[in-house]
């Protein structure tokens, strides 16, 4: 099939020419990031502290009950004084939409803020590596020295302590997750008396194993090879997106300090490789934007420290947009960027929907289902009878008594529902209603019919449901 005449002249050598530059982090070399202080390090601690809510939230009480509780067996979601039933699940959809779009919006404005400061993978990894570097040294050289040192009591106790601390954090992570779905205090008791339910053990086991392996051993490999978000970032960025970037025009050609003096022929970068040493994913920011960059800004802290020491202006590595770096002008303001505007609009709509949902939670859910088989029945006096199934869910915390009525159809009478219907809190009540219409009153095959459920005993509620009355043609 290949015509020899048109065969490409490119040799295989050319195709693979760049291969020696490929640097694929597949976990072969362990990344031991140096820890330095700075603005972004502080910001990262602040972002990480948001996760305290995850650990402490379940112990919050409200009206003597757990303030936030996903009660799966009873299919209820308690959020402070509000109880959400599965019928209101559309609010969850909007909440998820809100956070999904928020992720995209933030990425479009300032890159992977979530990855750098909030993501559980990077946050837990950061805590795990903090423990590790404290015990085993905070540079690849020190870590290697620790590793190659002969086994001693001191070394063994350090390794044991590290894994013990990792496991404690992992188990707390699992326990805290489970605590959102059941009473937190009871859960602790159940775990310690070995009485916890099977799902609780499974959650604890999976989260402990997952945290221990993901944060302890896989680390940045998860960001590189498991996380889909890293793969999507290039479509969420544009030329206005602020990203930690190396100002190559200022930095190049890089070169070491000679006798502690700056060489005016060279750029600002003194090739100290501090930006590489502090990077938790082991990339070199000077090679430009790449998939491994979680935009945590730690390289900015490192470079600024060096710039200060060498008496150069800070910001060789800084948060900058593509436009700023290449065209020397500022990024477009946020409100002039259509992408951000559209994201913002969706955010407002979904947020508004959730707020509307929470403020307009109906205390009941009313449904009328007409019988389909048969659509209508002729009675002995010639009148036509339709059958309906009425379902009413009591979402209040109190029992209610309901009176059903019909309206909107001249001559129609309701049968079989003379008594008040009593409904327990949280329960769905189902009754059958029969509606009859005199033969003389029938003038069309389908007539609108309105069912009304009025709460007699309980809160003042009246709900309508528009249904149909079917008759022969």
């Amino acid at each position, binding site marked *: 099939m*290949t015509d020899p005449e048109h*065969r*490409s002249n*490119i*040799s*295989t*050598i050319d*195709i*693979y020419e760049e*291969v*020696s530059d*490929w640097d*694929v982090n*597949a*976990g*072969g070399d362990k990344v031991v990031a140096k820890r330095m202080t700075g603005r972004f390090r502080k910001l990262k601690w602040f972002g990480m502290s948001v996760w305290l809510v995850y650990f402490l939230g379940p112990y919050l009480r409200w009206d003597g009950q757990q303030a936030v509780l996903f009660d799966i067996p009873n299919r209820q979601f308690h959020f402070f004084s509000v109880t959400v039933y599965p019928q209101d699940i559309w609010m969850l959809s909007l909440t998820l939409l809100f956070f999904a779009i928020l992720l995209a919006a933030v990425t479009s404005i300032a890159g992977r803020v979530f990855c750098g400061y909030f993501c559980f993978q990077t946050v837990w990894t950061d805590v795990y590596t903090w423990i590790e570097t404290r015990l085993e040294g905070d540079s690849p050289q020190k870590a290697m020295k620790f590793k190659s040192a002969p086994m001693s009591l001191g070394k063994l106790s350090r390794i044991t302590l590290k894994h013990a601390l990792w496991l404690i954090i992992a188990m707390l992570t699992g326990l805290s997750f489970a605590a959102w779905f059941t009473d937190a205090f009871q859960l602790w008791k159940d775990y310690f008396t070995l009485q916890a339910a099977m799902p609780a053990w499974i959650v604890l086991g999976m989260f402990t194993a997952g945290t221990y392996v993901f944060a302890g051993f896989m680390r940045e490999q998860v960001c590189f090879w498991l996380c889909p978000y890293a793969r999507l970032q290039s479509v969420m960025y544009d030329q206005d997106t602020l990203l930690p970037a190396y100002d190559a025009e200022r930095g190049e050609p890089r070169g070491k300090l000679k006798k502690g003096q700056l060489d005016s022929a060279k750029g600002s970068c003194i090739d100290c490789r501090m930006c590489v040493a502090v990077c938790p994913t082991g990339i070199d920011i000077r090679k430009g934007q790449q998939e491994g960059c979680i935009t945590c800004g730690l390289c900015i802290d490192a470079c600024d420290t060096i710039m200060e020491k060498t008496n150069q202006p800070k910001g060789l590595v800084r948060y900058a947009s593509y436009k700023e770096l290449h065209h020397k002008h500022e990024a477009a303001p946020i409100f002039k960027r259509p992408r951000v505007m559209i994201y913002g609009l969706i955010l407002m709509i979904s947020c508004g929907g959730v707020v509307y949902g929470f403020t307009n939670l109906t205390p009941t859910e009313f449904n009328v289902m007409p*019988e*389909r*088989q*048969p659509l209508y*029945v*002729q*009675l*002995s*006096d*010639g009148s036509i*009878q339709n*059958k309906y199934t009425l379902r009413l869910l009591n979402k209040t915390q109190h029992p209610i008594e309901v009176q059903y009525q019909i309206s909107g159809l001249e001559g129609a009478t309701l049968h079989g529902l003379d008594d008040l219907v009593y409904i327990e809190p949280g329960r769905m*009540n*189902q*009754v*059958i209603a*029969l509606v009859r219409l005199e*033969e003389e009153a029938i003038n069309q095959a389908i007539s609108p019919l309105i069912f009304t459920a009025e709460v007699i005993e309980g809160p003042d509620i009246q709900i309508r449901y528009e249904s149909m009355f079917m008759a022969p043609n």
Partner: protein
Amino acid sequence: MADNKNNPNEVSDTGHEWDGIRELENPPPRWWTISLYLSGLLVLVYFILYPSIPLVTGSTKGLLGWTQIKEYHRGLEEIEAIRAPFEQRLAEMTAQEILDDDEMRNYVVASTRVLYGDNCAACHGVGGQPVPGSGYPILNNDDWLYGGTIDKIVETLAGGRAGMMPGHANLLTEEETDKLVKFVIDASNGEATEAGWKLYNEKGCFACHGADAKGNQMLGAPNLTDRIWRFSGEPAEVRRTILHGVNDASDPRTRIAIMPGFNERLAVKLEAEEFGDDPEDYYDGTETERLSETEIKKLAVFVHQFGGGQ
């Protein structure tokens, strides 16, 4: 993870080349190789645990002893365990008590659909409405041949019904037949004439259908003055019923309309209780029990809830 960072130009190839792309002889990554062997191991474990290798008769059984039918039975046991408390209570309740209890009534209406479908729907239709013109009684209207109270429905289900109307072919002239057909149709529309009533009484129809033609539930004789037709309101069909009757063994063209009994033993028991006698004296040992007493009660409630129950 094995990484092949070797320069492709230094790696030997298989000699296969396509548009400059060579097939190298790099080994696959180690994790991939391990996964392959692990999945092979999984197949082996599966073969040992589950039925797998087909033999001449049947197959290997596997260590777990798993079969599809066992899984089905386990599922069935699960649902029966959920239903058991309800079914136990049902057995101790009368049909009337079930009807009066919201929870039990809802349970019966929801859980009896299959039972009804298996035993009743073939004639009476899925929703109690038979195919028009099929001649089976409608269950969801307010017209009952033998009574629409829950107890009467239980009785009908248990003992079955076979109404009897003699054929009148030998008793009526052609003209009288025409007049009676017209009378029956008029009566249904509330337009019966004096002459019609006269003929109705003369021919003895009142004996079963009553002096006011409103029927007799003791005999299962239908009401002729309402809008519901037991068979059909078409003049030719009305004529056939008058001339050849229903379940008249002497007339080969008669209509056959027999509802089988689904628990004759229960029917006999109910009859004995009505007279205050011991049912044991009534049984003759030939009574059939196609459905249990509880099933009869469930079906009675289900039918009652079609919308016509009284």
